[in-house]
């Protein structure tokens, strides 16, 4: 259908069974519906005349189950089964598809996909349902209140017909301003553990299309040799050996100077031609420090007065209390740089259409980032830039850089061509490990004072590390009074009631680009909080669960945190362990969700630790797709434990030493023998589950290892394998 069809003409064609009903927000944010083709960009729900529904997903699908989750919300409200609905990825348009928790910004992160969409998507589904019902009620001359849609069939008042028959008429109905949302008692799909992922079938037969699978006609593959040290620039390069590679097209230094782009006919040619490049670098302004220097700087900051007094405590008084305590526990922690290393290496493809539009094919986690950057690079208005969101092969934060790093790199490579051929930028695993935006290194020094009964009377907590948010567009949002909240989250807002706590923070210089990494600051703060709580319990001769519960006595937050703690303990058989085994527990709130984890280990640190079982309890409010919640807990636990076991990024002379999986070894199937996850039944609004499983996993492992014998210690520096712990 074309846009200039008359209304009458359009409706005629609609009657001929090509009608499509779109329901969604208009550009002013109000709910709107249209059955014109022009409204395609403005919808969350599409219903075709054959009765199939399509959910438009504004969040990336990179394994966390957002496509299934958002579609569930539409299906439930509309009144269709999951077999009667499909999903598509929404285009880039922050006026419509923004993350409601991010402001005018379309993006996925912070475990917010379901939390911000829960009411929005249900409302869109409900509006579509009410419009279809209104059309049927009018035709049948019955009260709309007597009708419902059940499994795609409008039914009630003695009548029944497939909803597809009313698609055209529904488009003429007024959009309900406040459609009725189904009561929880009516839910058939929300909370149903039998619901399957919609993307499973295409992911088991090779048909799933990731950005890496894009093959546009006549495309070139570009790979970039980047500076090995942050801040290095290209002085000159010699591509004479590259020219010997069959399929090599050309090499060009990027305008930023940070690397040389090699253009080739295919990926293998690009790899070989890039390897054959000789580059002369200028490292005069480049990073030259080693990991040890970075660590020394952080540890020194922990022993100096902090730059920021985060909780405005009287630190002198806290220190005096701690110094005078019956028992003083002191521990210094260190956390290394970590790479995200998603399975699908970074890549994206750019093409220019005959109309001069720029099209980006990308597993886009934050489409608004490249969309804004491309307006500058290509000097085009927003509507001339299209972003086609593809499935993404993992991210863990890496695909969401504030500077849209790899998409900008692809654009820079593209503008150095005549734009007649699409450019596919491909990173390999070495690029991924070495060109990373890393989880920043961090150090903590904690001194806890206990009274004669073992109760906490003072807690002096100092944090030092590299700020993620400072110097990014998110600074205004996340940094207050100089404090980057992501450096102290999980301590500053802990549901524990800890008496006499001082919290200080010092930022240290960034030696690499740093970035949020699955659960951000909680990756280290949960470890420190939970190891210190465990140490305090152990020192006091108290049970680790009972001890924590003493500090979780309030309502709300504290009660929910206590709830998962008790559930995990119960399900894990806390209090006993088979001979030679030991259990450790940790509990943490992050991204609005509460997770407690019990790790059971055997063996010893010299001959090898075996992780026998992990038991987790989760409270994420309403569990939209319970099996996805469980899967996310399993994955997040594995991600946390795997890196704590043996991963770190180290620098030598400013250059990353690791390069690929052999020296940045992923968690393997044999590393954790079993994981069991339990969900707390809840009527609270849903919160996230992409990240909250990660924070308590590593400290629970540390606490389990410390429980193996009376002289076993809590590991204070990660990774464990580089700090005295062997794994079997």
């Amino acid at each position: 259908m074309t846009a200039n069809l008359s209304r009458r003409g359009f409706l005629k064609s609609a009657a001929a069974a090509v009608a499509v009903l779109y329901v969604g927000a208009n550009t002013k944010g109000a709910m709107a519906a249209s059955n014109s083709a022009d409204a395609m960009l403005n919808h969350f729900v599409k219903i075709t005349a054959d009765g199939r529904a399509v959910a438009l997903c504004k969040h990336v699908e990179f394994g966390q189950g957002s496509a299934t989750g958002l579609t569930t919300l539409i299906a439930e409200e509309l009144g269709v089964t999951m077999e009667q609905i499909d999903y598509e990825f929404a285009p880039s348009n922050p006026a419509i598809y923004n993350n409601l928790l991010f402001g005018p910004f379309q993006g996925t992160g912070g475990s917010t996909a379901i939390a911000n969409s829960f009411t929005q998507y249900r409302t869109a589904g409900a509006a579509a349902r009410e419009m279809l019902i209104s059309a049927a009620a009018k035709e049948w001359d019955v009260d709309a209140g007597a009708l419902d849609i059940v499994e795609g069939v409008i039914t009630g008042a003695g009548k029944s017909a497939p909803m597809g028959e009313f698609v055209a008429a529904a488009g003429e109905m007024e959009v309900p301003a406040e459609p009725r949302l189904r009561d929880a008692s009516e839910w058939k799909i929300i909370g149903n553990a039998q619901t399957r992922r919609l993307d499973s079938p295409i992911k088991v037969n090779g048909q799933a299309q990731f950005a890496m699978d894009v093959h546009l006609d006549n495309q070139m593959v570009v790979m970039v040799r980047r500076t090995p040290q942050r801040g290095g620039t290209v002085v000159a390069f010699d591509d004479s050996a590259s020219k010997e590679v069959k399929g090599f097209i050309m090499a060009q230094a990027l305008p930023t100077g940070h690397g040389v782009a090699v253009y080739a006919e295919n990926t293998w040619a690009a790899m070989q031609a890039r390897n054959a490049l000789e580059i002369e670098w200028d490292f005069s302004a480049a990073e030259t420090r080693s990991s040890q220097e970075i660590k020394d700087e952080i540890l020194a900051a922990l022993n100096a007065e902090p730059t920021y007094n985060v909780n405005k405590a009287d630190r002198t008084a806290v220190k005096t209390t701690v110094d005078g305590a019956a028992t003083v526990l002191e521990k210094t922690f260190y956390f290394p740089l970590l790479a995200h290393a998603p399975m699908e290496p970074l890549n994206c493809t750019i093409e220019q259409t005959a109309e001069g539009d720029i099209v980006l094919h990308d597993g886009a986690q934050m489409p608004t980032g490249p969309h804004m950057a491309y307006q500058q690079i290509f000097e085009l208005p927003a509507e001339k830039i299209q972003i086609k969101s593809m499935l993404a092969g993992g991210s863990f934060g890496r695909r969401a850089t504030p500077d849209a790093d790899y998409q900008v790199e692809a654009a820079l490579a593209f503008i150095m061509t005549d734009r007649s051929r699409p450019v596919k930028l491909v990173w390999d695993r070495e690029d991924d490990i070495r060109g990373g935006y890393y989880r920043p290194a961090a150090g903590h020094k904690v001194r806890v004072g206990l009274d004669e009964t073992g109760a906490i009377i003072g807690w002096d907590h100092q944090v030092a590390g590299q700020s993620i948010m400072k110097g990014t567009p998110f600074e205004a949002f996340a940094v207050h009074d100089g404090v980057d909240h992501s450096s102290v989250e999980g301590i500053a807002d802990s549901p524990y009631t800890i008496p006499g706590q001082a919290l200080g923070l010092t930022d240290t210089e960034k030696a690499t680009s740093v970035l949020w990494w699955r659960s951000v600051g909680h990756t280290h703060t949960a470890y420190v909080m939970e190891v210190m709580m465990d140490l305090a319990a152990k020192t006091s001769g108290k049970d680790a669960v009972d001890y924590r519960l003493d500090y979780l006595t309030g309502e709300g937050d504290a009660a929910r945190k206590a709830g998962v703690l008790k559930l995990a303990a119960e399900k894990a058989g806390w209090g006993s362990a088979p001979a030679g085994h030991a259990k450790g527990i940790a509990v943490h709130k992050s991204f609005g969700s509460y997770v407690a984890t019990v790790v059971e280990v055997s063996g010893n640190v010299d001959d090898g630790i075996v992780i026998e079982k992990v038991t987790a309890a989760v409270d994420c409010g309403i569990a939209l797709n319970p099996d996805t919640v469980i899967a996310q807990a399993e994955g997040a636990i594995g991600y946390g434990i795997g890196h704590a076991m043996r991963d770190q990024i180290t620098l030598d002379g400013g250059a990353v030493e690791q390069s690929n999986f052999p020296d940045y070894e992923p968690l393997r199937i044999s590393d954790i023998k079993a994981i069991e996850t339990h969900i707390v039944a809840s009527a609270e609004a849903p919160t996230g589950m992409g990240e909250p499983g990660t924070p308590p996993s590593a400290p629970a492992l540390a606490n389990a290892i410390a429980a193996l014998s009376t002289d076993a210690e809590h590991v204070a520096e990660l990774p464990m394998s580089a700090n005295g712990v062997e794994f079997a």
Partner: protein
Amino acid sequence: MSISLNLNGQTHEVDAEPGTPLLWVIRDELKLTGTKFGCGVAACGACTVHLDGEPVRSCQTFIEDVEGAEITTIEKMAEDTVGAAVQQAWLELDVVQCGYCQSGQIMNAVGLLRENAKPSAEEVDDYMHGNACRCATYQRIRAGVLRASEILEA
């Protein structure tokens, strides 16, 4: 050089330089994208295909060494008794998350079940050790292989 490849039951004439990994011929020349690039050094298993029925890492299998061999990729697994059982088990248990490694996981799992129709959990772990999944879907991969074994037995 011109090479005749027997892939998924069809013969393809491809032009590739000696030393070209089979992976890039499958992906870039034949446009079969179910076989994935993960590491390029045989350390993750995302590129696993079958060579005469045996799982191999196609990123470290070179084009000049596969002439005459029967190559099978994920796209053909639905037609394979063991492959179909593994896919069914994967669907029943919703093994996948991002899914990028899962073609390789399935190809390797099929290799295991052809060799050992009733593996123990430990044997699954041993055989699947080289297939990385950064989403850490390992609990379900293990359960999926055991479930596929049951399906095949029934």
